[in-house]
């Protein structure tokens, strides 16, 4: 127990100290974690910690990341990416692999070793690249999408590679290897072992179908079931269970867990639970990836590195150069836009975490000798360590050169900013329909399953989730939103929400629903400047109806109610000065005093029609008097006289 706590504490403190410093220095979080790992590696060696097995555990962060990426990617979008995915991704793997293989053979290695090395080095680091692209907000750019296509192809390609590696086994090496040693990747369990080819295929297809069908049809009832308990952590538990379950299923049938969860993510991208899932899984992904990067840093074998420093550094730089050139050439073939071309080529120029997996697997299968594998492992690690520096190079030198060309587009992105509506009951529902009818896209959040059911019947798109939770707002894209409409019932939470958004996203325009005038003051104090009292307009209309029914001329009734509204505005402002959010209204003597005066003047004015209130009602359309007519005649006489005199 104590040991686990010590380990957890070590990893956490290393990350908590190193990452903010690295971010502050503009190095990005990935480099921060890697440095943290290097820093604690002597300690871990002292404690005899098996860093590599922790790394295998932390690789699950990559699986979660792909699930989250899938959530962001609607099936339609994925389909439109198919050319890039197969063309760009496929060519990258084949060309890079072939070149590396050629070089290895030129250096005198056998073809089978050379081929395995080619496969290891063809892969890039999904973890580093996606994390960095997300952090910099570049995922949606041309370069980001192209990078993602290549990474996704690689993640899928790992599976056939793993299947292929045993065929490359060298007999002499195999004899040296203790076959009882596992490869450490949970392949001990399998559903497909011992099955024939067609059975294998059938099981695989069934597993994928289970993910797709389950994601489409099972999530909804299960979520509804869980919502009954009204416990937040149950959603988190379910989300985790789902991701772990899919990963397990994929492992059992010999598919990539990353691919499986990615697929599940895509299936759920259109579901109303998308943001809830995102905000539940997000923190786990972040922590696991952080742990993964720390272990990469901690696993560096410094003795081996210092012994062969020149050779390993040369190999690393050579590898980065080769991958960079291949990617750059492909970016011309696939017409990636200019600035994005550099992002794409520099960003993917490292080897990746699947390289670790493949290396371990090749050693276990007697393809690559252990000594060579140890050196290659260092090359992979070093290239990953250098990646954040390549991104910095892009940020500092290349992006500014193209910034001018892109500055003009900035406004358009603004226009695209989304509108988030929190709460879609009777109040928010009307707002949503009006905005939709005006052609806007809205993101609607509600945590009432009944509302969701009702709206889905009318094909209205709503996301499940509690909008007052910052993580859910984040998942719904509050960073890129231009407007937040708060239409929830709960006054206190609405005020909290205003306070949070005003503080953290001051650029967002907020329209808030207030339950009463006290709530208006609370919302105002919290920073909202567009506040609508929920029953005010309808009450005024009811009053107008009553006046009309009592025989008032409809336009007089209209003017009477307009004047009331105008007066009420003045009264609101009057009382705002004495309102104190820290003192309940019924204990605020000054407020009560002033309210009495304001109310009294209201009533007086309405009754005797003398004071300011009446002047606002009667101001317009009052006919001129006989005095006015006399003045006009006199004026005219004066004019005529002055014109006739010379």
């Amino acid at each position: 127990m104590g040991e686990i706590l010590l380990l957890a504490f070590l990893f956490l403190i290393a990350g908590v100290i190193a990452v903010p410093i690295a971010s502050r220095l503009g190095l990005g979080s990935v480099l921060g974690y890697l440095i943290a790992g290097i820093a604690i590696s002597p300690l871990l060696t002292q404690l005899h910690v098996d860093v590599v097995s922790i790394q295998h555990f932390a690789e699950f962060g990559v699986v979660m990341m792909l699930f989250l990426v899938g959530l962001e990617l609607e099936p339609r979008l994925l389909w439109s990416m198919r050319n890039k995915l197969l063309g760009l991704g496929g060519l990258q793997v084949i060309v890079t692999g072939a070149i590396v293989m050629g070089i290895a053979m030129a250096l005198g290695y056998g073809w089978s070793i050379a081929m395995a090395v080619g496969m290891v080095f063809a892969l890039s680091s999904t973890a580093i690249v996606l994390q960095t692209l997300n952090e910099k907000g570049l995922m949606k750019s041309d370069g980001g999408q192209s990078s993602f296509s290549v990474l996704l192809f690689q993640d899928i390609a790992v599976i056939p590679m793993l299947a292929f590696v045993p065929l490359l086994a060298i007999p002499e090496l195999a004899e040296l290897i203790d076959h009882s040693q596992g490869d450490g990747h949970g392949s001990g369990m399998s559903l497909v072992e011992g099955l024939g080819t067609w059975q294998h295929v059938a099981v695989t297809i069934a597993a994928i179908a289970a993910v797709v069908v389950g994601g489409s049809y099972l999530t909804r009832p299960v979520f509804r079931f869980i919502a009954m308990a009204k416990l937040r952590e149950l959603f988190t538990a379910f989300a985790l269970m789902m991701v772990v379950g899919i990963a397990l299923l994929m492992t059992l049938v010999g598919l990539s867990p990353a691919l499986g969860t990615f697929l599940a993510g895509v299936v759920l991208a259109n579901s109303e639970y998308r943001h809830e899932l995102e905000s539940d899984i997000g923190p786990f992904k972040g922590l696991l990836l952080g742990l993964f990067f720390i272990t990469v840093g901690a696993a560096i074998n410094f003795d081996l590195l210092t012994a062969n420093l020149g050779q390993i550094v040369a190999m690393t730089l050579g590898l980065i150069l080769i991958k960079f050139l291949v990617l750059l050439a492909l970016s011309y073939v696939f017409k990636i836009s200019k600035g994005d071309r550099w992002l794409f080529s520099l960003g993917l120029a490292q080897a990746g975490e699947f390289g670790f997996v493949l290396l371990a697997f090749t050693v276990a299968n007697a393809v690559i000798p252990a000594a060579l594998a140890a050196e290659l492992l260092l090359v992979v690690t070093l290239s990953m360590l250098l990646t954040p520096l390549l991104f910095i190079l892009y940020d500092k030198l290349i992006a500014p050169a193209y910034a001018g060309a892109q500055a003009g587009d900035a406004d358009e992105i603004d226009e695209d900013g989304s509108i988030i509506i929190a709460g879609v009951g009777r109040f928010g529902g009307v707002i949503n329909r009006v905005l939709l009818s005006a052609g806007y896209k809205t993101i609607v959040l509600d945590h009432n399953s009944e509302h969701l059911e009702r709206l889905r019947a009318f094909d209205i798109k709503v996301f499940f989730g509690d909008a007052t939770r910052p993580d859910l707002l984040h998942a719904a894209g509050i960073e890129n939103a231009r407007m937040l409409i708060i239409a929830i019932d709960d006054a206190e939470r609405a005020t909290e929400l205003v306070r949070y958004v005003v503080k953290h996203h001051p650029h967002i325009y907020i329209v808030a629903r207030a339950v009463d005038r006290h709530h208006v003051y609370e919302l105002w104090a919290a920073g909202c400047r567009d506040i609508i009292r929920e029953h005010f307009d309808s009450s005024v209309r009811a009053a107008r109806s009553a006046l009309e029914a009592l025989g008032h001329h409809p336009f007089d009734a209209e003017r009477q109610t307009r004047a009331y509204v105008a007066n009420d505005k003045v009264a609101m402002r009057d009382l705002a000065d004495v309102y104190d959010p820290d003192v309940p209204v019924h204990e605020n003597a000054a407020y009560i005093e002033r309210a009495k005066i304001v109310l009294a003047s209201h009533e007086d004015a309405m009754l005797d029609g003398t004071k300011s209130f009446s002047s606002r009602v009667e101001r317009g359309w009052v006919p001129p008097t006989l005095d006015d007519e006399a003045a006009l005649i006199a004026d005219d006489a004066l004019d005529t006289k002055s014109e006739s005199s010379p």
Partner: protein
Amino acid sequence: MSKLIVYYAHPGHKHSHANKSMVAEARKVDGITFVDLYAEYPRFEIDIDLEQQRLLDHDVILLQFPMFWYSTPALIKEWQDLVLEHGFAYGAGGDKLAGKCLMLAVTAAGQKDAYAEQGYQKHPIRTFLTPLEQTAKLCHMDFSAPYVLYGSLRAPKQGLIASHAAGYRRLLEAIRDDRYDLPAAIHGEVVSCDDLPIREET
């Protein structure tokens, strides 16, 4: 320096060509007040006190609008009905606007030759604007010749919008800088971007 306020009224602003370009130019002129009436009072609830104060604060009041049925868009009429009160603008003690100047900038769909005795509109455009002219007179204000764009529907195709909008900007700047020859304009029929009586800066 004259204090100039431009009141713009067009309920179909987004469909407009001429007025939209004119507004874009007007918004670039510093040191004048520009009011989009339909934006300020979308529900026709005009703030009488505010509007009267605005009139008191300015020397030249310019109404910019498209001709609708030989008159102004409805909101300008509502504005007149409410803001130009007796006792303020006219009638007994109503001399608050005396000595100020009222000017119009109008766009008309009909061609120039339509606005003549022989044309299909049967009258020159000034005839249709006499209610506003007389309003100015009753308020003891000068009425300057309107800045007119005829044939506003065809103007975009004929490439006439840009020059009209640029002329509008020069007009507003000249009024602001007291370079606009008001006496000359008062006696004119209408002015266009080609014959603005502007004095060059000395």
